[in-house]
């Protein structure tokens, strides 16, 4: 071994870096990037100079204005000189903000996970709590939730004699010792960072750590229950209930459903959802590709770079991967990029092989949900138990301001007219099942507006999507299997719609129909009213509101 190690440079170069043209490629890319950075710095400097110039001009104007005003004031009130002093600034300076320094240690320890930015936009929660078990203190010091990611920054302090043991967690281990619930119910979602994270030592017997979870907004206000059973090798019981209010985040999160599908040589990519949150841009991407597992190099996963507004390598982010019958692998991924202040009209993604960086596919898709002017024409018809409201207009898609008032629940692939509940990772993560052993997954409930059926365990073969494909033929009201975002109307905004379920149908990037569904009893029998709003839609929110109001008061005879 020693002999081989002494020769490792030659051996490793021969095995790993045998392609000499790659060296030139790497150097070329470095130089390109350096040039790009130099230009950026120049532009920035130019921008600053321009800004300073503008600022100077404005300052001079402002000073002249003040002098002029003061002189005028003196002119009119020269007899009472004491009044002149009232012109002095009454601004009380209170720039010191202790919260600015809170959590800096996490940033310094590279454990920030967006805390600093979350603090900047004011969505951190003021919550601190210490729980002690077996002489080990577990202190929650910083918490934030941005509508998609829940982050807890904590400190561990050992006051006992048993030593804390630095350890690395794999995702499963982390899940075993950090149990989370929302309102005492295990949520859908995937543990994000924190997996494999070792806590960072900051003093003898003292560590800091951060863990986060991808969590789609359950309610406006909820309790996040964190239950820890082991800390750095010491068993105990540390339970913390964190009350969370999402009031502040409402305006800081934007959701898009591009539903963009694109094909490449060995597979296809579908961008289902794009989430702009203060701490990240999150893509919900489905990827189907040929399995390319290589013993030596490991899995050749496909990763994504976001190319605009400036190129950025991603962090990948598998959520689940399933082997399809044709041998290909389907992965559902949450892909994270660093947050941006502006939302562009379109995004360009580059898919590349993680092992050699080679490009697999590059594609651009639109993000804007609003386009063009609209021509308003309205008509409605009540047919039997269905009120169909046609909203005319030239605009192709629903206006963003209306979308804003509709809360996303989740996007799932379902037969149209159906609503699926309970299909989530828990279906197999809680059982003994694994992505390759779906048979052991727990049963889930498939529910449409009209039917409810339980799918038995022994029927669970393949993945949930295949499963639905298999069963959709049998569903009474199924049409084709489409990717449909299921949404719920914000009932606080429109309380008159309580009791309705809502659903959107999409075609390509457009929302084509919006359903409101209400069930009621008539003559002892359950009836369902389905209100279908067809798009192209009006951009006139007041019209939609009016329509919704009339719907709420409508009598269904």
């Amino acid at each position, binding site marked *: *071994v020693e002999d*081989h*190690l002494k020769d*490792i*440079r030659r051996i*490793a170069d*021969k*095995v*790993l*870096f045998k392609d000499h043209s790659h*060296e030139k490629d*790497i*150097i070329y*890319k*470095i*130089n390109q*990037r*350096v040039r790009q*950075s*130099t230009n950026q710095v120049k532009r920035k400097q130019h921008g600053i100079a321009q800004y300073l110039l503008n600022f100077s001009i404005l300052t001079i104007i402002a000073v002249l204005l003040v002098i002029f005003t003061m002189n005028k004031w003196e002119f009119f009130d020269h007899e009472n000189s004491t009044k002149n002093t009232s012109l002095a600034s009454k601004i009380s300076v209170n720039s010191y903000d202790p919260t600015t320094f809170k959590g800096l240690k996490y940033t310094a320890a*590279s454990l920030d*996970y967006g805390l600093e930015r979350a603090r900047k936009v004011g969505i951190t929660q003021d919550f601190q709590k210490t729980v002690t078990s077996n002489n080990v203190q577990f202190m929650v010091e910083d918490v934030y939730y941005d509508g998609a990611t829940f982050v807890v920054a904590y400190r561990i302090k050992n006051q006992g004699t048993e030593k804390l043991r630095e350890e690395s967690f794999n*995702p499963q281990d982390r899940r075993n010792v950090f149990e989370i619930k929302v309102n005492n119910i295990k949520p859908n979602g995937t543990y*994000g*960072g*924190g*997996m494999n*994270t070792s806590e960072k030592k900051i003093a003898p017997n003292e560590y800091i750590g951060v863990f*986060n979870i991808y969590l789609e907004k359950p309610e406006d206000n909820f309790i996040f229950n964190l239950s820890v059973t082991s800390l750095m090798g010491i068993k105990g019981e540390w339970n913390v209930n964190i009350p969370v209010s999402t009031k502040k985040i409402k305006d800081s999160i934007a959701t898009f459903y591009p539903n963009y599908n694109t094909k490449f040589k060995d597979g296809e990519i579908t961008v289902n959802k794009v989430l702009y949150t203060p701490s990240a841009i999150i893509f919900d991407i489905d990827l189907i590709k040929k*399995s390319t*597992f*290589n*013993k*030596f190099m*490991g*899995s050749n*996963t496909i*990763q994504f770079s976001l190319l605009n507004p400036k190129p950025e*390598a*991603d*962090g*990948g*982010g*598998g*959520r*689940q*991967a399933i*082997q399809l019958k044709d041998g290909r*692998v389907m*992965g559902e991924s*949450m*892909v*994270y990029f660093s947050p941006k202040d502006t939302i562009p009209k379109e995004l360009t993604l580059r898919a*590349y092989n*993680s*092992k*050699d*960086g080679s490009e697999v596919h590059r594609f651009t898709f639109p993000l804007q949900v609003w386009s063009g002017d609209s021509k308003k024409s309205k008509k409605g018809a009540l047919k039997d138990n269905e009120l169909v409201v046609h909203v005319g207009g030239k605009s192709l898609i629903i206006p963003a301001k209306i979308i804003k008032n509709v809360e996303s629940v989740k996007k799932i692939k379902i037969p149209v007219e159906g609503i699926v509940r309970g299909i989530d990772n828990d279906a197999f993560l809680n059982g003994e099942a694994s*992505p*390759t052993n779906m048979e052991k997954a727990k049963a889930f409930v498939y529910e449409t507006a009209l039917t409810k059926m339980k799918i038995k365990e022994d029927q669970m073969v393949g993945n949930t999507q295949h499963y639905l494909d298999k069963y959709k033929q049998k569903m009474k009201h199924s049409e084709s299997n489409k990717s449909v975002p299921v949404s719920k109307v914000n009932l606080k905004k429109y309380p008159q719609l309580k009791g309705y379920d809502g659903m959107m149908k999409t075609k390509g990037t457009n929302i084509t129909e919006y359903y409101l569904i209400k069930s009621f009893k008539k003559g002892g029998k359950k009836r369902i009213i389905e209100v279908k709003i067809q798009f192209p839609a009006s951009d006139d929110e007041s019209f939609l509101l009016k329509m919704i109001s009339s719907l709420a008061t409508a009598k269904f005879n």
Partner: protein
Amino acid sequence: MMENMGTKMALTRNPKIDVEMLAGLYGYEVYKLAYFYLKDKGMAEDITQEVFVTCLEKIDQFYGNIDQAKFWLLKITTNKCKDIFRSWKYKYTLLSDHILDSLKSSEPQQEANLIKKYEKDVLVDKILKLPLKYREMIILFYYQELKINEISDLLEISQNTVKSRLHRGKEKLKHSLKGEY
């Protein structure tokens, strides 16, 4: 040609020229070190570029010769790679790899058997599979041919720690290679 200019050559103090020169000299070294840390060519490329952007930003604070510049670049690289390990993005990638790895049981083993035939490949494979703290010692000491005190300075740990990790790393490597040779 750059290498023939010798190690005494001083930097020009023109940031762009200096960085491009350093990229020509050590760009691939930085990439290779990043690869040994990250085991991912795409990420290693990204980190390499990041290292030289940092280099561009901080080169006016650097005083030293070309050899010291190499050491400085390696230090930036190790720090950046460790930042990546700590970032949640990397952890998501790990999860992705972990899940896809779980599919390997269904893959044919022919390729694995082929690779086993090449013991040198196995050695590199085993080094890459060592835990990070041992892997970096083996790479810095044997591949980068740094001295114990240099590794100690680079990683900001004591020389004794370097020695013990290097020793344990070799032990682990020997243990994992049992039966392979």
